C-alpha cells in the first residue's frame, strides 16, 4: 500500500512540478514523474499479485459524505496493470513526440496527463462510492484537456466537446446508480453497498444504470460515439493511453458492479453478451470502411471492448447455469483480453503516431510503401496488428481462445436460450475475428506495403529513439504475454472467480485444466514464428551475392502506371462491404468511367457513424431547439428572478408544512 501511495504521489508531483518549473526541467518533470511513478506502481502491483496480499486503507477526510477508502483485491490489481503499464510507455513516447511543441502547452499537457494516470489508478483502488466518483471525475475531465492539445483546429475542439458531453452523460448515470445504492445501504462504502444490494427488491435498474455509465466509458455500442471522434484528434500517445487504459475503467466498472450487486439473474449475462457482440460487429463493419488509420484503430477499440463484454456476459451466463469451468474460462479470457488490448492497441496507436510524424498524415490513401522507409516502425506495427488480429503466438490469440473455449463449454452445458446465446456469441466472435483480420490487413497492407502514393510518404522516416523504445516495450509485452499465457491463466483465476462469483476451489481446478490446454496450444503454435524465421533466413541466403534491382510490376502493357493505381482503402473495403450489405452502414459513391476518353471517375467508400447520425445528432438537435425556445425565460429582469425564488420558497414551505 505504501509503495502504491508513493507511486501516486510521484506521478502527481511530477505533473505539478512541471507546471511550476521553467525551461528544460519544466518540460521533463512531468513525463519523468509519470514514468517513475508508473514504474513504482507496477512494482507494487506485481508484488501484491505475487504475494496475493490485499491491503486496505481507510481514512476520514472531513467531508460530510464518504471516506477516503482504498483497497486491493484481485480485480483491482488486474486493472491497475494497464494503467501503470501504459503509464510507462506513453510518456516515453510523448517525451520525444512533444519535443518541438511550445513549452507552455507541453507543461500543462503533462499536468493533465499525470491527473489522468493518478485518477485512473484511484478509480481502481477506491473502496467508497463517493471517493470512486471523485476519482472518476478527475479521470474523465483530464482527457478533455489532453484531447484538445492541438486546439487551433476546429475538428479537435469539436472532438474534445464530444468527449466531454459523452463522458458526462455517463457520469450522470453513475451518480444516479451510486446515490440509489447508497440510499439503500445508508453508507457509501463498498462493503456496505455489497451488503445492501442483495436485499433490494430490484437490482436490475442499478445494473442498467451502471451499464450505461460504464459502457459509455468503455466504448460499448451504442454508446461508443466519442471514441472515433476523440482518438484521431488527440496526440498519439494520449490516444494510446485512452484506448489502452482509460476505456478499461469502464470495463472495470462493469466487473466491479457485477461483484457488488451479487449474482444477478441470467439475462444480465445475455444482455452483456448481446451488447458485446453488437459492439464487436458494428465496430468492425464501421472500422473497415474508415480511410483514416487512427479512426480505424478507434473503431477497433470498440470491437475489442465488445469482445471483453462478450466474455464477461458468457461468464455470467455460464456461472448462473452452474458451469464453473466454462465461466472461469470466459471470465479469464475477458480479463486477459483487457490486458492484451492495452498492450497491442497502445502499440498500434503509437505506431500510427509514428506514421503521422514521419509521413505527415494518417490518411491511408496518401500512404504506401512505408515499410521500406520506416522499417523499425513497420516491424513493430506488424507485431501489433498480428496480436490484434489474434494470430498465434501473440497474446490476442490466447485471450480470444479462452473466450471461445468458455463459449463452447457453455453452449454444450446450458439449455435452450442460454445455449443459443453461447453458440451465437461464438459464431459472432468468429465473424468478428475474420473482419478484424481484413481491417488490419487494410491498415497495415495499404500503408506499409506497395509504393508511396504521395511525395510525403516517399520522404517518411522512423521516429526518434524514445518513441521507438516505447513501441518496442509494448511489442515485447505482446510477445511475452503470448508466451506466458498458460501461466497467466492461474494468475487471473482469482479475479475471474471474483467476477463470476465462483468458489475458489472450483476456479483453481478449472484454471489448472485451462493451463495445460493452453500449454499444448502454445507448443503447437510455436512452429509458426519458427517457420517465418526460416523463410526469412532462406530468402536472405538465396539472395546473398546476387544483384537485386527493382522494376515496375507487370502492368498489362499499360504505358503509364502510377502509384495511385494500387489498391486503395475504398477498393479494399468494397467487396466485404457489399457482402455485409446496408446493415454495416457503409456508403458507396461510384462514378464509372464513361466513353473512350473518360474524364472523371471515382469510387469512394465512407462509413459515417450509424449511432451518431441516427440517435445522438437528432437528440442533441432537439435539445438545442428546446433551449432556444426556452430563452424567453431568460428575460433579464432581476426582480422577477428573485420573485420566482420567493414564490418557490413560499410554495415549498407551505406544501411541506401544511
Amino acid at each position, binding site marked *: 500500500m505504501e509503495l502504491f501511495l508513493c507511486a501516486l504521489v510521484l506521478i502527481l508531483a511530477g505533473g505539478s512540478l512541471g507546471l511550476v518549473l521553467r525551461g528544460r526541467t519544466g518540460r521533463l518533470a512531468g513525463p519523468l514523474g509519470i514514468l517513475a511513478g508508473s514504474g513504482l506502481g507496477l512494482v507494487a502491483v506485481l508484488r501484491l499479485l505475487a504475494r496475493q496480499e490485499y491491503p486496505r486503507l481507510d481514512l476520514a477526510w472531513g467531508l460530510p459524505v464518504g471516506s477516503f477508502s482504498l483497497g486491493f483485491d484481485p480485480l483491482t490489481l488486474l486493472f491497475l496493470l494497464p494503467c501503470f503499464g501504459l503509464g510507462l510507455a506513453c510518456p516515453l513516447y510523448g517525451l520525444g513526440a512533444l519535443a518541438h511543441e511550445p513549452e507552455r502547452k507541453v507543461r500543462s499537457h503533462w499536468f493533465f496527463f499525470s491527473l489522468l494516470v493518478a485518477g485512473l489508478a484511484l478509480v481502481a483502488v477506491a473502496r467508497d462510492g463517493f471517493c470512486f466518483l471523485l476519482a472518476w471525475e478527475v479521470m474523465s475531465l483530464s482527457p478533455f484537456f489532453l484531447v484538445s492539445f492541438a486546439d487551433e483546429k476546429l475538428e479537435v475542439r469539436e472532438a474534445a466537446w464530444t468527449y466531454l458531453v459523452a463522458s458526462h452523460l455517463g457520469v450522470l448515470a453513475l451518480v444516479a446508480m451510486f446515490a440509489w445504492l447508497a440510499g439503500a445501504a445508508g453508507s457509501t462504502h463498498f462493503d456496505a453497498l455489497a451488503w445492501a444490494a442483495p436485499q433490494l427488491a430490484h437490482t436490475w435498474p442499478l445494473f442498467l444504470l451502471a451499464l450505461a455509465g460504464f459502457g459509455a466509458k468503455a466504448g460499448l455500442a451504442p454508446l461508443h460515439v466519442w471514441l472515433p471522434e476523440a482518438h484521431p484528434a488527440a496526440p498519439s500517445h494520449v490516444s494510446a493511453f485512452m484506448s489502452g487504459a482509460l476505456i478499461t475503467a469502464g470495463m472495470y466498472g462493469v466487473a466491479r458492479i457485477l461483484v457488488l450487486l451479487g449474482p444477478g439473474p441470467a439475462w444480465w449475462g445475455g444482455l452483456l453478451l448481446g451488447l458485446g457482440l453488437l459492439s464487436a460487429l458494428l465496430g468492425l463493419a464501421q472500422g473497415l470502411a474508415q480511410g483514416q488509420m487512427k479512426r480505424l484503430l478507434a473503431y477497433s477499440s470498440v470491437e475489442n471492448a465488445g469482445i471483453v463484454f462478450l466474455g464477461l456476459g458468457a461468464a455470467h451466463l455460464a456461472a448462473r447455469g452452474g458451469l464453473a469451468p466454462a465461466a472461469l474460462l470466459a471470465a479469464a479470457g475477458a480479463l486477459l483480453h483487457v490486458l492484451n488490448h492495452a498492450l497491442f492497441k497502445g502499440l498500434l496507436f503509437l505506431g500510427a503516431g509514428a506514421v503521422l510524424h514521419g509521413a505527415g498524415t494518417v490518411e491511408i490513401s496518401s500512404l504506401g510503401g512505408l515499410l521500406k522507409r520506416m522499417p523499425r516502425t513497420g516491424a513493430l506495427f506488424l507485431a501489433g496488428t498480428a496480436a490484434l488480429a489474434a494470430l498465434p503466438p501473440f497474446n490476442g490469440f490466447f485471450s480470444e481462445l479462452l473466450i471461445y473455449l468458455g463459449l463452447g463449454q457453455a453452449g454444450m452445458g446450458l439449455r435452450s436460450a442460454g445455449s443459443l446465446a453461447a453458440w451465437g456469441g461464438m459464431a459472432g466472435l468468429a465473424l468478428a475475428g475474420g473482419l478484424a483480420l481484413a481491417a488490419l490487413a487494410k491498415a497495415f497492407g495499404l500503408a506499409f506495403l506497395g509504393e508511396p502514393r504521395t511525395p510525403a510518404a516517399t520522404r517518411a522516416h522512423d521516429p526518434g529513439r524514445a518513441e521507438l523504445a516505447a513501441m518496442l516495450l509494448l511489442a515485447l509485452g505482446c510477445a511475452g504475454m503470448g508466451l506466458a499465457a498458460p501461466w497467466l491463466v492461474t494468475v487471473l483465476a482469482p479475479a475471474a472467480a471474483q467476477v463470476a462469483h465462483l468458489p475458489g476451489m472450483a476456479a483453481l481446478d478449472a484454471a489448472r485444466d485451462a493451463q495445460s490446454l493452453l500449454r499444448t496450444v502454445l507448443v503447437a503454435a510455436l512452429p509458426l514464428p519458427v517457420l517465418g524465421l526460416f523463410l526469412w533466413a532462406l530468402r536472405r541466403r538465396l539472395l546473398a551475392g546476387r544483384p537485386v534491382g527493382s522494376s515496375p510490376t507487370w502492368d498489362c502493357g499499360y504505358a503509364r502506371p502510377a502509384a495511385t493505381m494500387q489498391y486503395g482503402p475504398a477498393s479494399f473495403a468494397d467487396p466485404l462491404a457489399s457482402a455485409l450489405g446496408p446493415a454495416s452502414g457503409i456508403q458507396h459513391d461510384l462514378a464509372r468511367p464513361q466513353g473512350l476518353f473518360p474524364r472523371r471517375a471515382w469510387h469512394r467508400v465512407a462509413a459515417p457513424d450509424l449511432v451518431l447520425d441516427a440517435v445522438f445528432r437528432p437528440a442533441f438537435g432537439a435539445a438545442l431547439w428546446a433551449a432556444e425556445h426556452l430563452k424567453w425565460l*431568460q*428575460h*433579464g*429582469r*432581476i*426582480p*422577477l428572478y*428573485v*420573485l420566482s*425564488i*420567493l414564490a418557490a*420558497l*413560499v410554495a415549498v*414551505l407551505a406544501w411541506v*408544512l*401544511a
Partner: protein
Amino acid sequence: MHAFVEPLMVLLVLVNLGLLSVRRMAWCIRLAGVQGALLGLAILALAPGAEPEPHVWYLAAAVLAIKALAFPMFLRRTMRTLHLRAWVEPYIGYGLSLLAGLAALLFSLWLGSRLAIPGLHLPPLLFPAAFTAFFGGLTMLVSRKKALTQVVGFLAMENGIFLFGAPTLAWGSTWMELAVLLDVLVAVFVMGIVVHRIDRTFDSIDVGLFCSLRD
C-alpha cells in the same frame, strides 16, 4: 434581560413594515440602521443566563458598530456620490408593499406554529420576527427599482437569519457569527462597488435596465 425580548421583537417587526412603506431613501437607510441596532440589543437580550457573558457583549458591539453605524454611513455616502433621487421608486405601490409585509408576517406566524425544531426552545415571538425580516427583505429585493434598495433588502434578509441564530449562541459559535458578520461586511462593500459600476455603465442604478445584458 429576558424581559426585553418581546418588546424588541415587536419593534423589529414594526421596523420591517416601516422599511416596506417609507418613501424616502434616507429614511430607508436610517431604518436599516435601526434594525441593526435592535438586532444588537436582541443578541444581548436573548443571551442565556442572567447576565450576558463577555463574548456575547463583543458580538453585540460588533453588530452595533457594523450594522447600525457602518452600513448606514456607507450607504448614505454611496447615495450622495451618485446624486440619487430621494425617492425609493418601487415597482408596486407603498400600500401594496405594506400589504406584502403583512402577508409575510402572517405567513411567518403560521410557519412558526408549524415548524417545530426539536431541542430548540425559542422565545415565542422570535420566529415570526426573524422570518418577517427575511421575507420582508426578499419582498424589497423584488419590488424596488434602485440597486441601492436591493442592498438594503439584502441586509434585512441577513438580519432575519442572524436573529434566528442568536438564541443558539454558545461560546464556540460566537466566532462563527463574527465570521459571518465579516462576510456580510465584505459583501456590502462589494455591493457598493457594484452599484457604482452599474451607475457608470447604465447612467442609472435601475435594475430594470439589466435586461439589456441578456444575450
